[in-house]
């Protein structure tokens, strides 16, 4: 009971407040920009050349404003939005009217989730393991080599690195496709032909994320472990004659992982924002380009849909970490 009152409840309240404030901000911010979704649609219709009498343009603007529910004050729209959101409805996309926002998100979400969850977990595991070992065995030649490689990779801007992979393996040695999520003519299905095709198309985007992700996790973990190895309990374990591998894994790396778990949860929470640059460089489908297009076209509802999921994702991941942290850290459990 005390756990619920003193630990669980405050965190749930905090989660709800963060979600409420976050969603409120993302509701108002797009509306304060000069981008007008109605005008964006009209511009898209007319900019390439279709004829429209100026009087008809004015009438169309009025019709679309009504149709999109953009009439009335900002607060009127705000309350209507919460009314819809409670029912799990983000409304129709304004630019793709009347396609529901959730339908558009569901087209892109599996791609983003598949790519980012896999690459985040792989790079977290490998990066932390190698970083932990390199931090503990810092004088070994392999540890120094890994350290040097990470120091070279880590500062490379992601855009440059992904472009480098693209040019190298899609052009100079063209063994991977340069664009897309799967081959033209291939049917999506749970079969080897599609799965292998999907893996091939995802390989370069995944590698770009995994390699830089490993480098980032490696360096952070190495730094954490470098501090832990100087702790008294590690010295004591060494003096006690425990095996190096036991000290490394059970005393050092295990403790070093605690802050990294928080990082992992936040990274997983961020997947709803997509990986914009990856998607642009590799023409890979996902939420990033969906959100980018929505911002450019002033598609308020779609912006709200994607960013609300992102806010909920990050806040939810933080809550989850808070709740499961006692499992990893006995100090919190005992408190």
């Amino acid at each position, binding site marked *: 009971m005390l756990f619920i009152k003193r630990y669980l409840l405050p965190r749930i309240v905090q989660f709800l407040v963060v979600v409420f404030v976050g969603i409120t901000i993302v509701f108002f911010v797009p509306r304060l920009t000069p981008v007008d979704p109605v005008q964006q649609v009209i511009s898209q219709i007319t900019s390439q050349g279709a004829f429209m009498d100026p009087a008809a343009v004015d*009438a169309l603007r009025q019709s679309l404003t009504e*149709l999109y529910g953009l009439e009335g004050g900002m607060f009127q729209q705000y309350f209507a939005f919460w009314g819809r959101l409670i029912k799990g409805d983000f409304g129709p996309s304004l630019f793709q009217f009347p396609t529901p926002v959730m339908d558009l998100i569901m087209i892109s979400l599996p791609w983003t989730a598949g790519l980012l969850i896999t690459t985040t977990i792989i790079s977290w595991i490998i990066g932390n393991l190698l970083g932990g070992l390199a931090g503990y065995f810092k004088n070994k030649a392999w540890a120094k080599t890994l350290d040097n490689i990470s120091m070279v990779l880590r500062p490379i801007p992601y855009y440059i690195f992904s472009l480098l992979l693209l040019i190298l393996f899609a052009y100079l040695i063209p063994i991977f496709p340069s664009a897309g*999520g799967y081959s033209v003519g291939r049917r999506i299905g749970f079969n080897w032909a599609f799965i292998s095709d999907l893996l091939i198309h995802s390989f370069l985007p995944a590698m770009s994320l995994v390699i830089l992700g490993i480098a980032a996790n490696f360096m952070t973990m190495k730094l954490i472990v470098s501090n832990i190895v100087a702790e008294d309990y590690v010295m004591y374990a060494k003096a006690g004659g425990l095996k190096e591998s036991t000290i490394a894994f059970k005393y050092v790396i295990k403790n070093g992982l605690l802050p990294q778990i928080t990082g992992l949860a936040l990274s997983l929470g961020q997947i709803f924002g997509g990986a914009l640059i990856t998607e642009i460089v590799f023409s890979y489908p996902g939420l990033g380009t969906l959100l980018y297009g929505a911002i450019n076209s002033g598609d308020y509802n779609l912006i709200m849909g994607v960013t609300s999921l992102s806010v909920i994702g990050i806040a939810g991941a933080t809550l989850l970490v808070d709740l499961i942290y006692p499992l990893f850290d006995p100090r919190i459990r005992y408190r």
Partner: protein
Amino acid sequence: MKKSACIIVLALLLFITGLSQVAGIPREETLIVDVLSGRAGSPGNFNVFTSAWRNPDRGIQQLILEPLWIVDPTTGEVINALASEEPIYNKDFTQMTIKLRKGCYWSDGVEITADDIVYGIETAMKYTAMGSHDTFNLNVKKVYKTDNYTVVFELKEPNARFHANFIDRWGGWRPFPKHVFEKVDDPITFDFNPPISSGPYVLKDYDQAGYWTLYEKREDWERTPTGMLYGEPKPKYVLFYYYGETSNKVIAQANHNLDMTDLTIEAFRALTQRNPYTRAYRIEYPWIVNVDPCITGLTLNNEVYPYNIKDVRWALTLAIDIVDYIGIAFDGAAPMGVLHLPPTPYYLKVYYEPMEEWLKNFTLDIEVNGQPFKPYDPSATLRAAQYARERGYTVPNDINELKEMFGPGWWKYAPDVAEQLLIRNGFKRDKNGKWLLPDGTPWKITIINHPSPSHPSNRNGLAAAQQWRNFGIDVNVVTSESIQDITFFGNYEVSTNWPAPEPWGGHPDLDRVLSPFHSRVYKPIGEYAVQNGPTSRWTNPKLDKIVENMEKIDWNDPRNLELGMEGLKLLIEEMPTIPTFGYPGVVGWDEYYWTNYPGAENPYTQPYHHWPNLKYMLPYLEPTGRK
């Protein structure tokens, strides 16, 4: 051990390479083209008849929709597609009749008749979210058929340009099948999937993530306007693929996985180093497409001081050395345009050449050496050619060829005259030669610019800034993704929006260009302007009169051409916006699998893959036979 490792790696590479091919579609029978407007947001929705954006250039408008009429900016023709002849108006333009081409069929075997047109118009008028809903409700009193191939519109008011709503020029009202749409509950939410086609292709497959769409040639292609007018399209399949960034397009075409694309001039140069089969619209410099019906330049806000002063607008014009300007913007490769019309070969013939004498004799209200100043400089073409030669490019000597390449002339570079114009309005220079406003404060121009560095608008902004800085004005260039919204609300001084709305490209009628400048569509700063021209907030009673007279006569009436010239002359005299060069489109065509693209040496149709006219290009393409 090493040997087996090598074998494993080799096998893996072969496996991977095998998987990266297009699955089950013969490459040599497939034309692969890029998608201009990006990844499809709702890829399973082919209902482009609503007012929502559905990426029609992913093959929908190019292959599976035939319009009533379509304009071709290369040949200058307005082509009768589903219509068998031009629109027929009654005497007072309150009635318009459309005659339909007989023997055209939807891809499911149902004949295309007047019922489809009548149903389509009535549906558009009924549903707010249908495309052209407001246009038709403003104009149409009644629509009916008199037989299976004749549709009559009774209009609420006389309107000699009502047919313009049906001319496909990257958009326009296109018929959809009554027998399909009348069976659905809601034509707005209907996804029209699979789409029933009036064009020579049908949908075969599409990417559920929105990157590609594949079409297959109809077996009965001869029952479409494309087949009837131009014959059998050559590619069995056409694949529209959105490759995204320019680097991806370059890689794809270098690997022969992309036949037609748009590029930047820098990307095109890089590509030619990698792919000997790549060509542009012109095989040699200046490479660019010179038939794009769009004029680029600078828009001045005529409601903001000092751009509300005609002398200032002209001074800014004369402070530009156009050869240097286009050199900065496009290494000299874009055609200069002195009129508020693009200098395409068609408009050179219809407007530029007939107006050349007037241009030569046109004077500004200022004297130089005791003579009225004549600002037109026909020798700018030769200067542009000389610039190109000095840059090491080979260009012809024939003046007519040069005019098509570089444009027929522009305004003189006359900073001395510009200075006189400013001084007589109270401007002065400080001790460093920098211009001051009449109140003594420094004159600083802020140009709001397009954010993409490869976009012609962006290049205009950079070139103008350079020119005006050379002249002594402090210029600040601000790029913004929201340029359209900012400028349409009028919150700017100078922008790089098009200086005039785009013309048809293929008919002398300039109502499209001039009517948006009419005072009836004027919006003060703070209210949204309707199109590019009105963002300048310039109006003029003389122009109102020209537009009103234009709208009272048939667009084929010879007086229409004269009125068009009058309008252009007025725009020059007032110079509310400054046209600089025609849109320099850069296309990359790979001749590895297909040849006979409509390049400058054989311009049989418009050259863009994203225009709806692509279907009329396909019968002319030739397979090379390479596998």
